[in-house]
């Protein structure tokens, strides 16, 4: 029998797709491989070694930047997720309201305005506050990260709320449960995969941010990405590869967990 005529086949498409996947992953694979190189080169393989991981681990600047990155990501994802839950409840559990489009525009603003514009705007505004108050701590970075994490936390939570069956909430209300009780006993338990997914997305987004952090940070407040950006101007050793590989590992773990959570049935 002749080969069945495949209506889904387009000549050349498979080849381009294959090339795309190879090109997409080849640089990342090389980056990971050379993080285990025992030599100082990032192009000539000289044998397997953990030395760049050890050297990154022992580097005090890297340690401080890591702690700072994690502290900021922890607070930014925690606060933005909490706020996003409230906002998602307000925009899914009530009917259309006046000012709705303004609210949506504000929540989505960090997604639509180019990052460099937001970064510059925050630089100007926070510079004014720094002059006025003298405070130069981490709070600026936490607030800035919280703001741009909000839409990322909001979207999966909202999606989960929309997909939820309202019958249980209504039944609870019919049985005279006060609204807060309904929320903690009925809504929240069903919502938690969405909350966790939103929090993880916010955490990774905060951990990865370069541009806004670079502009908002005060002296000596490098996070891992801004530390790496600074390193790239000097001689690059596989230490940057090692740090990148660890961050890459965190991202992959998070995205796999995120995908699994998003698929959980309501």
């Amino acid at each position, binding site marked *: 029998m002749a080969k069945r005529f495949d209506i889904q086949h387009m000549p050349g498409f498979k080849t381009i797709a294959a090339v795309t996947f190879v090109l997409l992953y080849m640089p990342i694979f090389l980056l990971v491989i050379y993080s285990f190189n025992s030599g100082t080169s990032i192009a000539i393989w000289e044998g397997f070694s953990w030395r760049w991981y050890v050297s990154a681990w022992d580097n005090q600047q890297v340690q401080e930047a890591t702690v700072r990155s994690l502290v900021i990501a922890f607070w930014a994802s925690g606060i933005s997720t909490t706020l996003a839950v409230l*906002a998602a409840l*307000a925009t899914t559990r009530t009917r259309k309201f006046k000012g709705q489009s303004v609210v949506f525009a504000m929540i989505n603003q960090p997604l639509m305005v180019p990052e460099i514009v937001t970064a510059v705007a925050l630089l100007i*505004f926070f510079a004014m506050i720094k002059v006025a108050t003298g405070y130069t701590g981490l709070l600026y970075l936490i607030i800035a990260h919280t703001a741009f994490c909000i839409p990322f936390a909001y979207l999966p939570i909202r999606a989960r709320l929309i997909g939820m069956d309202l019958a249980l909430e209504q039944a609870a209300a019919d049985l005279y449960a006060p609204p807060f009780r309904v929320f903690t006993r009925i809504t929240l338990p069903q919502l938690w995969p969405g909350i966790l997914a939103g929090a993880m997305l916010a955490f990774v987004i905060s951990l990865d941010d370069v541009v806004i952090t670079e502009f908002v940070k005060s002296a000596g407040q490098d996070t891992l990405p801004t530390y790496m950006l600074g390193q790239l101007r000097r001689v690059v050793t596989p230490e940057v590869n090692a740090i990148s590989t660890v961050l890459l590992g965190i991202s*992959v773990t998070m995205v796999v967990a995120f995908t699994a959570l998003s698929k959980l049935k309501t």
Partner: protein
Amino acid sequence: MTDISHPATPLANDVEKRASRVRWLLLAPVLLVLLFAASGPLLITLVYSILTPGEYGGVIWQPSADAWFNVILQRDIFDDTLSWSDAHLSIFWRSVKLSLMTTVGCIVFGFPTAYFIATRPKHQRDMWMLLIIIPFWTNILIRTFAVVELIRNEGTLNTLLMWTGIIDEPIQMLFTEFSILVGMIYVYLPLMVLPMYASMERLDFSLVEAGYDLYATRMRVLKRIILPLVKPGVIAGSILVFVPSLGAYVTPRVMGGGNQLMIGNLIELQFGQGRNWPLGAALSITLLAIVMVALMAYVRTAGDEAPRHG
């Protein structure tokens, strides 16, 4: 009998008022944070663009239209004549050109890839999409750096080419417009594939089959049936790639080597060495305006498309 669900009755009015109060109470924290760290600062930037630059950065609170003048014009310091600002215009031109080329490049690689994924058996599609999403979740700096490693003079590609004897000297690829283009296509490709896949997944292949039954060639089916149906996804992907490309900062900085600036780098320069905050603010607002025009054009096209394709 009165209809209690009607909003005009006192009871329903109370319920509605209460719901409204709760809603704004729930929204207040989010709006406050965004006002403080997103919308508010943007308004202040607008104000800064019409002030006089301070000597050591910052501003003097004195209105001035100079910054807006300087976005595309320059005044000769000797005879005060006005002329186009070649430096700014060439950077704007480079940004628009590279962003358009990035968008086209992403379509060229992204379209067949999205089509490939959409035509896999159902249980395989999620796995292929995960492979697209993982780079999307990976730090843009790390991905840019990975490409730098590949194409730099001492990088893998040049080492490989010299080792095989194809070339004798490394090819200078880094720090050119070409390298920025490669980097941006690499970085933004997932943003193109995601919406394209979303619209292709819904594509009804019986329409494609009908086309073949009526003796249409593959090319014709692609042009007359598939493309019109997945157009919304292509447009959405293009906007998702074009907008961040235009404001790109990290990729041109790492891959352009300081002499291939884009708008994002020009803006940064005004806040650093340039010490002209109002000009930086005016350039930011200009960039934002271009992006908004692109987004509005998108909403228009998307709005026109939606009713026709359900």
